[in-house]
């Protein structure tokens, strides 16, 4: 039956092309939407996931890392008092403005933290300079993808530009660190960040705590939250909350989900129609096979082989298109995550789509009676 099914499929090139294209478009749409969704999640929680720490402490009511209030210098010694807290590192994460050579302004995210020159590196993905260089007075990093946006030369190392009225010096260049808001990230030391943002000595926007034992986390969180102005979360919870804020509350997640669903529906309709047309076209021949004794399983395999080939060819083509979309999006500052779990999820969804699309044809061949050929 395999040969009958496949040759019948290949024989009708127009329908084969239409159905493979249908699966390819559905695959590309689905993977692109899931990839962008995952890319948004990664972008949203990128700083949290790269900053070493078991528990994060921030001002009560803070919803997202990008919008945290400044905490007083007194908070540091307070949280260090818990016996489980081995170390506390301050972080400043704030939006401000950079001024280009032409006098116009660009919103930027300034991240201040004491650089970490050993794994886990902070900042990370250095392509020029070293984390330790950020301690130079008003030294900042610029991502190479943002150089043009900030009016800097393509190789910005050594350039000077104005950030919140201060002359910052580019002492490091990172490769591919983007914020969810598509604003350039500028990394610097805590002291430099305070100077640039006019903050007082000891002030930070968040603290990260390294614990002597990660199992202490609930105790430490409860202890911190006894303070009416503070809230604490594990790193995973804080990352999750930040992702949720951007994905769900912004409505971006629903839009991406809806588009992905639309891709699946389009795929089901195109593949379903093509398979059914192919089945209809061979109705008499399939009825003839029924007459000579072919059973339901054998007739279903006629549809199954065709959907398998259409699905595989479409999925391969669609994955290629999705990678192409990823490259284009990379150029337009939108991050698309096509990691293994995303591909697996997307391709399983496409397989389910093909099965659903084939259901109508399977039902039709199972209803074929031999008498219809007479």
């Amino acid at each position, binding site marked *: *039956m395999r040969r009958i099914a496949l040759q019948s499929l290949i024989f009708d090139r127009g329908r084969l092309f239409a159905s493979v294209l249908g699966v390819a478009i559905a695959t590309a749409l689905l993977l692109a939407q899931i990839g962008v969704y995952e890319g948004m999640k990664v972008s949203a929680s990128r700083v949290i996931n790269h900053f070493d720490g078991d528990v994060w402490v921030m001002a009560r009511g803070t919803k997202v890392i990008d919008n945290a209030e400044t905490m007083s210098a007194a908070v540091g010694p307070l949280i260090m008092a818990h016996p489980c807290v081995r170390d506390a590192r301050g972080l400043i994460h704030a939006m401000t403005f950079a001024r280009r050579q032409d006098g116009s302004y660009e919103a930027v995210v300034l991240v201040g933290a004491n650089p970490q020159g050993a794994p886990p590196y902070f900042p990370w993905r250095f392509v020029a300079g070293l984390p330790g260089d950020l301690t130079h007075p008003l030294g900042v990093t610029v991502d190479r993808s943002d150089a043009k946006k900030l009016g800097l030369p393509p190789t910005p190392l050594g350039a000077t530009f104005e950030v919140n009225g201060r002359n910052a010096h580019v002492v490091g260049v990172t490769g591919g660190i983007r914020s969810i808001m598509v604003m350039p990230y500028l990394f610097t030391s805590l002291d430099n960040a305070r100077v640039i943002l006019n903050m007082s000595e000891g002030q930070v926007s968040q603290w990260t705590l390294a614990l002597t034992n990660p199992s202490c986390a609930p105790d430490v969180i409860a202890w911190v939250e006894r303070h009416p102005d503070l809230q604490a979360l594990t790193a995973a919870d804080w990352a999750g909350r930040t992702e949720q804020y951007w994905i769900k509350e912004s409505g971006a997640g629903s839009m991406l989900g809806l588009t992905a669903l639309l891709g699946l529906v389009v795929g089901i309709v195109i593949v379903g129609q093509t398979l059914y047309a192919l089945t209809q076209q061979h109705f008499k*021949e399939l009825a003839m096979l029924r*007459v*000579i004794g072919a059973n*339901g399983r054998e007739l279903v395999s006629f549809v199954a082989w065709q959907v398998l080939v259409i699905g595989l060819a479409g999925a391969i083509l669609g994955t290629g298109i999705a990678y192409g979309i990823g490259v284009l999006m990379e150029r337009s500052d939108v991050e698309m995550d096509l990691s293994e779990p995303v591909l697996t999820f997307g391709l399983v969804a496409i397989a389910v789509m093909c099965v659903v699309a084939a259901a109508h044809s399977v039902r039709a061949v199972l209803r074929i009676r031999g008498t219809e050929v007479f």
Partner: protein
Amino acid sequence: METETAFPVLARADQLTKVYGDPPVQNTVVDAVTVSVRANELTLLMGPSGSGKTTLLMMMAGLVDVSAGRVELFGTNITGRSIAKAPGIRRHRLGFIFQHYNLFPALTALENVAEVLRLKGVAAADAYAEAEKTLQAVGLGDRLQHRPAMLSGGQQQRVAIARALAGNPALIIGDEPTAALDTKTGQKVVALLKQTVGPERGVLLVTHDPRLEPHADRILRIEDGRITADEDKHA
């Protein structure tokens, strides 16, 4: 009405009845028919349109449930077995020919015969070897790689005959196999079918074409669901 011969009975209908519809609106299409189809004979089942000949054929092939009576194929009672329950007999012991050939357009003549043999459980190499031999036997040895669209109607029907003969079934059943062919081609096709008849094989054809009568060993005439004549040409 039936004449005894030395050749085995391949199919037997006993008081076979088919009624469509429920009371009070019922239509008796086949009415208490008793007939046998034997090996070594080309039997024609003849009658006008709507006489019940195709329904009788389908019941005798185990394709339609009977309303009353009994059907035996090769000595096995298949009464009450629906299409799904009697595929083994059809797959291995019956060959079918249809008015419209029903060949897969994407397959060559060779593949159309061989792939059906494969469905009957024959290994690929054996199926293709037998298909080639059978196509040569029906005079299509030079058309093995031709698709149906490249063949004339008569050649397509010969491919269908080769498909029916492949696997060496004991009974070939044909439904109006010459209806879509011109007279000359139709005569050739029936002559070919006549050649396939032997001590172990019989042919039963449904037709309303009187030009086929000279080829028949036996003619069953049916009208309004009843056999009105059983003419044994050798009796």
